[in-house]
């Protein structure tokens, strides 16, 4: 059983996202360890990109802060290797395809395996373009996590049929970011995935409050929270409180989905 599937066997999974290197790589290490301690089951590490077209303003700004502070793909791999000496929490990269392409597909996935990355999400690499990536993600045993959107309709079938790790179900149209309300009929999308795939379904985009997380956990296997965590990091890093407040937030969210 992969590290990722094991994480979903312990009940509903809380998946936390943060941008690697925001505000610096040392802080990211502390956040990841604290998130695990507070109950996170999987951590998604964003590799910062200059032009993240699927992100709302919160993560766009985090990416720019991280790049400005000197984060690079090479250094992020080193960060993962350091985290792995202290923690076995499943780690998933969220990266735009150009970062992977420029590193070299084979070299990138080889390095993922070396440092202990479990999965990868590439928001600008839809099903039809996954072939060139899959050749190497499979070779090195990294789960390529696919997204399903409210607009996917009949595409759900083919995406789910080849899903690995978990399915990232996008809660609503638009880019990442905190939303007060999610109107998509997620239950019916989850229902259409179940007969095709036994891979767990986690819902992300817009989730920030415990009540939202709790109601989504009733229909899905996990909840993914990104912008809300990145916001806390942006707000509390200067005062030095961010590790503590991120931990408190993750605990509150995890408790809500138990």
């Amino acid at each position, binding site marked *: 059983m992969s590290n990722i599937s094991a994480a979903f066997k312990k009940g509903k999974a809380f998946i936390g996202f943060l941008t690697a290197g925001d505000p610096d790589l040392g802080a990211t290490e502390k956040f990841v360890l604290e998130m695990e301690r507070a109950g996170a089951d999987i951590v998604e590490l964003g590799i910062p990109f200059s032009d993240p077209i699927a992100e709302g303003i919160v993560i766009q700004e985090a990416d720019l802060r991280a790049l400005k502070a000197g984060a690079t793909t090479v250094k992020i791999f080193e960060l993962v290797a350091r985290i792995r000496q202290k923690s076995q929490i499943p780690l998933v990269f969220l990266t735009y395809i*150009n970062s992977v392409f420029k590193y070299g597909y084979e070299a990138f996935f080889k390095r993922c395996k070396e440092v202990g990355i479990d999965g990868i999400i590439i*928001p600008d*690499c839809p099903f039809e373009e996954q072939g060139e990536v899959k050749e190497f993600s499979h070779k090195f045993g990294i789960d390529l996590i696919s997204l399903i959107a409210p607009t996917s309709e009949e595409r759900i079938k083919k995406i789910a049929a080849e899903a690995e790790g978990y399915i990232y179900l996008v809660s609503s149209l638009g*880019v990442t970011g905190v939303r007060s309300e999610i109107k998509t009929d997620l239950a019916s999308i989850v229902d259409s995935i179940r007969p095709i795939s036994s891979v767990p379904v986690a819902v992300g985009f817009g989730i920030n409050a415990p009540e939202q997380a709790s109601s989504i956990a009733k229909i899905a296997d996990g909840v993914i929270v990104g912008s809300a965590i990145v916001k806390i990091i942006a707000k509390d890093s200067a005062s030095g409180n961010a590790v503590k407040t991120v931990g408190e937030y993750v605990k509150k969210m995890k408790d809500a989905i138990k």
Partner: protein
Amino acid sequence: MASGRFGIHGGQYIPETLMNEIQNLERAYLHYKDDAEFNTELSALLNDYAGRPSRLYFAKKMTEDLGGAKVYLKREDLNHTGSHKINNVLGQVLLAKKMGKTRVIAETGAGQHGVACATAAALLNMECEIFMGKEDTERQKLNVFRMELLGAKVNAVTSGTQTLKDAVNEAMREWVSRVADTHYALGSVMGPHPFPTIVRDFQSVIGKEARAQILEREGSLPAAVIACVGGGSNAIGSFYNFINDPVRLIGCEAAGLGVDTDKHAATIAKGTLGIFHGMKSYFCQNDEGQIAPVYSISAGLDYPGIGPEHAFLHDSNRAEYVPVTDEEAVSAFEYLSRTEGIIPAIESAHAVAYARKIVPAIEREKSVIICLSGRGDKDVAAIARYRGRGLEE
């Protein structure tokens, strides 16, 4: 692998949320491009409204001055709204209407595509929103007001470098947020498939007319077709009908302060293979794949990538891509104004500049065609500033 490849370039590297829509767009386009009624409507718009066919003008004084091949200017600057952008926009907005869309969004650099889009939206009763880098809204204030006058909402984009690349980012983010009633009328031969093909087809009217016009005037094909390249829509439109002919195809990239500085937008000269804005192509970027901030005096060429078909024409050596600096372009802007009484867009002036370099060495009995993709009224204030004269716009 998805469809829409030009050699290794192109593809559909976009968020899942847009995939169904982009496949709907491809289906709709494949249906309507051969639909007689659609083509009749589009031809009527292009001819009666936009003023096609555009003239192929023999630039007699420029020819005499350069002392080489005969210089012809394909006068896209005389189209309604002042540039070639209207060709693509009328096609796409009409297509969007057939698809049942009620709203169009678009990015714009210099404002030419935004103005064309706002114009077509006004004519065809569509809601219209334009995304424009904040820096460009300041460089091109008149075009901002022009778009508003035409009923469009203009959003100044404050992220990133606040130029064309960021306007595309923001238009894509908007499209992901509201896709059911909205068509993204991409303005160049870039982005995910099918845009590079759709835009090329709608722009290929330029070269189709020019080929027939030069054969009628000269009885022979030109030695070269020269056009400026940012994303590359007027260039591919000019080149496409000459691809199977023994004609040099030359794309002029914006070299800004020079390709040996970090202030340029010369994608073929200095870029590397990458995947961005939905396509595999060449981009100005660093070793880690972070997209570089690019620079050109011309807002319309100030883009870090190039359309995938151009990348392929470069790979296969079918077309040449050459860098032209700000200084060369400004000098050509002034030259054409004085010599022919035609003020070209600063984008098109890049093509004029390169023609000045090569035409003297081409035999007098031959001809070259320069695509004059737009008119220069929008640039007058910026050129005055460049020459150290402050002008109020």
